[in-house]
């Protein structure tokens, strides 16, 4: 256990993470509206020791009721449209929607008309667009930090 923790500390030092300049936070609730799992994997690693999203005050929360931002991945499938809307309506105001990844932005969608509704902005008002297929963890972090700056 001690070796693990020592290794982790070394890893964080090696990653040369910048220190956040002031205290502030934004809570995120992720919803997979029909993605290929690429954005999920990169978002997961954004919380890993190489990026450590939490140190900027960006935390993923379990419930939309605790969230400032709904982070939506994938094209919206017809079967995920309702759950996505339910999650959005459960959020307290003010609330923002971020579309994560090219599919969420409606780029080069693959699928049938019956199965796919379309880009996230066809269902919800989108405040932040993060492009990439999938966007890298540092790109995800940078885009979300810009959203915090905007809020200031």
């Amino acid at each position, binding site marked *: 256990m001690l070796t693990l923790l020592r290794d982790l500390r070394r890893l964080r030092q090696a990653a040369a993470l910048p220190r956040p300049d002031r205290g502030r936070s934004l809570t995120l609730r992720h919803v997979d509206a029909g993605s290929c799992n690429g954005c999920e994997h990169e*978002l997961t*690693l954004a919380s*890993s*020791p190489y990026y450590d999203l939490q140190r900027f005050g960006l935390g993923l929360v379990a419930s939309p009721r605790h969230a400032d931002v709904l982070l939506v991945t994938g094209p919206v499938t017809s*079967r995920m449209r309702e759950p996505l809307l339910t999650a959005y309506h459960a959020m307290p105001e003010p609330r923002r929607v971020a579309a994560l990844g090219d599919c969420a932005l409606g780029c080069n969608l693959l699928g049938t008309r019956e199965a796919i509704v379309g880009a996230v902005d066809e269902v919800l008002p989108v405040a932040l667009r993060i492009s990439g297929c999938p966007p890298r963890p540092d790109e995800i972090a940078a885009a979300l930090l810009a959203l915090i700056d905007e809020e200031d």
Partner: protein
Amino acid sequence: MSRDTLQQSIDAGSRFAALYASEDSVRTVLVAPNGETQVIQSPVVDGHAQSVVDLVPAASWDEREAADLYGIRFDGHEPLRPLVDHDPDLRSWTVPVRGHDAYQVAVGPIHAGVIESGHFRFHLVGDRILHLDARLFYKHRGLERAAEGHSPESGIAFAQRACAACAVSNSLAYAHAWEDALGLAPTRELARSRTILLELERLWSHLNDIAAMCAGVGFAAGNNRFAGLTERARRLNDALTGHRFLFNTISVGGSALTLTREQVMHAREQLEAIRDESRRAWRELLFNASFQDRLPDVGVVSTDDARALGAVGPAARASGLAEDARTSSRRLAYDDFQPVAPRRTAGDVQARLEQRAVELLQTFDLLEPLLDAPVDPASAVTGGVESGVGIGRVESPRGATVCVVERADRLIERLHLRTGSYANWPVVAHAAAGNLLPDFPLINKSFELCYACADR
């Protein structure tokens, strides 16, 4: 008639690989121990086809899917519950569980963490799971239908987009299917290049799975350590191919992948470092009693159940089935490949975790000789027998993935992709029964299946 053929082939040692429908018939794909595939066709008459679930329980989800997507009634499959279609009536898709104090817990489709969408309905008494109904296909995008009419080159996007975590496996199964149909055979160089990509995908995937299992019991230090190693593996992918998930590296009939001497050297150095660090981190997991205490005798799948349910991949091998598509992958560079097994093949969470660890080491061993020289672009050679149906079979990080292409000249008439995740989802539901609800995240993570791969 077709049922007799099916029974004979199974008696002769063949295994069920896929079942899919088109408007007028149902096709069952079997694979013999030597990797030879066989397609058995049975007609759809007035919307009815004969079920084979009594002979092959593993075909249950396949028939339910075919029923939903093509409106086929499978005679003998009772009750034929919807799978892809989401009926709001609970009684139509859940198994009735009655009794004193039995109640249900509904989870999803949106989960608490960064997890794909899918719904689980647990039937419980106290904390004990009596039965689990998994309702997936929230992410169904109709990829197979949408691929129809596409060329071999443009159609590969549909296989790749099915799942980022299995992008190489799925697109390689697709490429193999087309090459089988077009009578193309890979050269040694092409086989080597593709085997490198497939093992690189397994590398990051297995590291990710070990991290996920640590997360499944809330062991943050182990999770972060292996997440860090996953990141390094993905950076290596990026350095070699320009994409962290190896997207667009597979194509039909050849490969454009070039790895210079410097890139190959870099890869060997990185792999050496990742191997040493993952060994060290793994040792730490072994000596962490509070972590290890959670693993044995949880989510047990017996050898017989694994065989009957059609389990594949590390999960099947952890249950004692020595099956691995790599042993019969003639289109890839797996000479003299032997599947590895953990110390104890108990079919529980611990065995599945250990299986990842031993396979991870095997992947390093496989990659080392494959990366002994620069990689150049390569093509498949023509001259084989052409056919209207091509089948590709690849061992993905989650198990055997089968792709079938039915063609009209050089266009896709029907595409079917049955991934390792699809094969194993019913096994997860089976493994959950009898366990405690709080152990489900761990059981689920010990399979670490993709939803996207199954939903397509």
